[in-house]
């Protein structure tokens, strides 16, 4: 059987674990072998993984690159080997500046959705008039794909009327614990704020900040936290506990993985080039709606 390969920038984040599952299930359903390689946010390893995949006889490759700057190198490698390449989650450009076929939702789109939802909740809450509110933007400042998300979210918030001065940037490394550690002092440093909006690059970042707010004595109704991924947000919802998580963007990794696999296989079988965009759905979920669209464990 022919084999298709997926390369993911991280194998330890739930979203990519889901994506790998979707990718492999779709391949199997259509009688293809599949392999998944994770590169743990390492650009150099991503290049190695790409050449390993090609050397291993892959007929098509899907990749979520750790960095969008890798686009030209990856596109050239695939073109040289004459196999189809599809970018997932983070769009890539080839050497000529043309987009590589893409499946999923990009970081800017994610950040925009999160920002929109947060802005909507903020406007509804009425904090914009009168209350002293702040916005915690939890960011991995060393990772461009993360910055894309939080920048887009912040843009939406300010567009909806939030003051740019209200934004407090919380640097972390993508983990819950780091977010918790970094958010603590920043909350302390803004004692005038009695209501907080929280956005981040992932659910872990939001969770850490929400926990830090809890530690600082904030009640759930004083927090508007919008998750990204929904896998942490859904837990208190499922348990029926009050929480600062008011909504979250649910990304179905499984769907993106399956869409990428199917697109690759279609192209291999038909000999046609890949479609430029294979769109998968994103959904904003909240405590009342999440159960319809996602599992929660």
């Amino acid at each position: 059987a022919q084999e298709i390969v997926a390369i993911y920038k991280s194998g330890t984040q739930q979203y990519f674990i889901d994506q790998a599952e979707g990718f492999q299930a779709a391949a199997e359903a259509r009688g293809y072998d599949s392999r998944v390689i994770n590169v743990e946010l390492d650009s150099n390893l991503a290049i190695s993984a790409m050449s390993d995949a090609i050397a291993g006889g892959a007929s098509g490759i899907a990749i979520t690159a750790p960095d969008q700057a890798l686009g030209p190198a990856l596109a050239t490698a695939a073109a040289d080997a004459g196999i189809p390449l599809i970018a997932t989650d983070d769009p890539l450009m080839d050497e000529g500046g043309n987009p590589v076929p893409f499946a999923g939702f990009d970081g800017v789109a994610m950040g925009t959705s999160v920002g929109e939802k947060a802005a909507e909740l903020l406007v509804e809450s009425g904090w914009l008039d009168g209350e002293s509110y702040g916005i915690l933007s939890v960011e991995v400042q060393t990772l461009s794909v993360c910055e894309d998300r939080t920048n887009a979210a912040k843009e939406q918030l300010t567009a909806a009327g939030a003051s740019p001065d209200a934004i407090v940037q919380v640097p972390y490394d993508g983990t819950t614990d780091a977010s918790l550690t970094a958010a603590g002092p920043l909350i302390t440093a803004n004692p005038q704020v009695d209501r907080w909006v929280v956005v981040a690059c992932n659910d872990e970042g939001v969770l850490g900040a929400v926990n830090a707010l809890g530690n600082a004595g904030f009640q759930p109704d004083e927090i508007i936290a919008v998750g990204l991924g929904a896998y942490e947000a859904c837990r208190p919802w499922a348990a029926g506990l009050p929480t600062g998580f008011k909504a979250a963007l649910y990304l179905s990794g499984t769907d993106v993985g399956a869409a990428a696999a199917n697109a690759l296989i279609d192209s291999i079988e038909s000999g046609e080039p890949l479609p430029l965009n294979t769109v998968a759905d994103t959904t904003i979920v909240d405590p009342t709606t999440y159960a319809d669209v996602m599992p929660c464990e």
Partner: protein
Amino acid sequence: MTTTDTPRPPSQDGALKRITAFVGAENLSLIIALIILVALIASQSEFFFSARNILNIGQNMAVVGLLAVGMTLVIVSAGLDISVGSMAGAASVVCALVVNATDMVGLGIAGGMALGTVLGLVNATIITVLRVNPVVATLATFSAFRGLAFLIAPGGRPVGVLDPELRFLGSGRVFETEGFPGIPVSFLILLFVAVVAHIVMKTTVFGRSIYSMGGNPAAARLAGINLTSMKFRIYAISGALAGLAGVIVTARTSSGQPASGTQGLELEAITAVFLGGALLSGGKGTIVGTMLAVMLIAVLANGMNLLGIPTFYQLVAKGLLLVAAVAIGQWRLARSERQQAQAAAAGSQ
């Protein structure tokens, strides 16, 4: 002359001298660095000295602090344990799973620490029985235990755990009163562990044997100290404390984190131990020094976050602080030796 770790008969010195004797002359430079740092931060942020922020720092020290205490034992014994972060990750998952299954926080803590201990014994076995040097052995288990953590976690995913009692361990406070925000439980745990470790290192046969075996393994072996059994005990303790750190990660983040929450922790802990005055070659290092170093690093991180300094500058600042803290110590040492030499020269004239 530098201080030794043997308690001397109590003298009639002033309080200052007694403090110096306790922290050790070498650690004075850490205290100096800490004071300068605190002054700098406090001058820039009025919030630094708020009770809440101080306690916040204490709380944030807990995870690295626990690892650093275990690492101090390991490094003083002339070993190294690079796997602590991975052990903490595995223990964090086990703790979450146990609490979810049994609803008993005590069992969760015990489970996490037990796993840590077992993994520590695995390290010791590789080092003693297979005679693999500690750096390679724990670099290997650094990888293997991390893999294990993901394999334990169903689907390799973080395990959510919402038990309020467990949460109390991570972010609860005791002695909370009007105006005083209370003392974080996780800090109290660290404090307790550090004090016990300090006493063990200073006054027990086990502790003194660690200094001997680290300073001169041949001498220790020939004097009848069983290096193998010592290593088993030391790595088991390091593992158990890593397990406890993992439990606290679970409690703080309300989820068992196979890797996130524990990445790079080994370097943090190692940094603290060396900054606290330990030597790579073993035989030297104190719990007091390590804890001061942990505090210095935690204050720096807190201060920089408080002042909203971006990550890039934080990285540079952390590097500079480390160099400065050790360089101050070296400079003081050199100066005091020069003075002693001059005094000796003058005296014999």
